[in-house]
């Protein structure tokens, strides 16, 4: 994805102060995983959103403050869950290692 850089997706043009951002990268070993699917589940486990990862393995959600679960689906891997907390004005950076 254009604008991607080491350490996370570029936040240029994003109104970070008014968003609760969860973003990160999916990797297998040292390699980013393009075309994995990352689902955002709410505190009750209900689906809220899903995105495929970019060519550089990145994903981003504009969530609400609170506790969330990231569920990652990828070819040749079992679904993998990671817990994350989002806060308004903050950027939660997650690396999902398959």
């Amino acid at each position: 994805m254009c604008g991607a850089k080491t350490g996370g997706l570029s936040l240029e043009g994003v109104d970070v102060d008014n968003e609760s951002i969860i973003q990160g990268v999916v990797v297998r070993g040292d390699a980013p995983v393009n075309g994995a699917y990352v689902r955002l589940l709410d505190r009750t486990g209900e689906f809220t959103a899903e995105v495929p990862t970019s060519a550089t393995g990145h994903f981003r959600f504009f969530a609400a403050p609170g506790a969330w679960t990231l569920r990652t689906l990828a070819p040749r891997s079992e679904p993998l869950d990671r817990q994350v907390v989002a806060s308004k004005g903050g950027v939660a950076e997650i690396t999902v290692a398959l």
Partner: protein
Amino acid sequence: MSRQASLVDADWVEAHLDDPKVVLIEVDEDTTAYDKGHIEGAIKLDWKQDLQDGVRHDFIGKDRLEALLSERGVGNDDTVVFYGGNNNWFAAYAYWYFKLYGHDDVKLLDGGRKRWELDSRELVEETPSRPATSYTAAEPDLSIRAFRDEVVDAIGVKNLIDVRSPDEYAGRLLAPAHLPQEAAQIGGHIPTAGNVPWSKAANDDGTFKSDDELRRLYADAGLDTSNDSIAYCRIGERSSHTWFVLHEILELDNVKNYDGSWSEYGSLRGVPVAVGDERGTA
């Protein structure tokens, strides 16, 4: 309709890749997805550029649809198979839209693009060319489309099914969480609408749950299937997914999609709104 008549799986699609009477059409929210790779032989419909009016806040009418499908090489007697990303949200929207305009033989690829990718099935970049046709659309079938006034009259009377995520239903989010939350309208839901998120009807891989699981889902949610139902979401694509489940898989004929959905209702003056996790009262 039925599951057998309205859904096909990936093996069926692979067996029909060379069938000239089967037209695969990819419809995505991310309209660039097709260009990065698609199922061999599939053409693309851009849900926004191709299917939205562009001036009116509505989809294109009969005349423009006829011109579009004639130019893209879709015939009236072709079997159209839709698939796409986002668990087939926009493919289901296109399915509903084609049904509205009377296309006889329409199907969804179960699991859409995601299941196909997770299976590591082939995607190609070559775009096919189909000979032009002379497509004729029917007058819109309004038995499957609800407009604003009917929805307002349905409060406390008909089944209103809000298929967005619980946080959108309650008003804590205004849009799905992979999109910036910049929408201008207020948050909340139509009073008396129950919240049955579209995702409860699908497995993690995007395929639909079994008929028994689907029947149980709506029975547990208290859906009175003898009454008329109207499904809505934010812009009408996720509610097309639920309309597909209720009208096509479970064969309930009294179900409409309110495609104006929350982006319209949540911007209206003079209508009641409920916030929070409870349904609210009429």
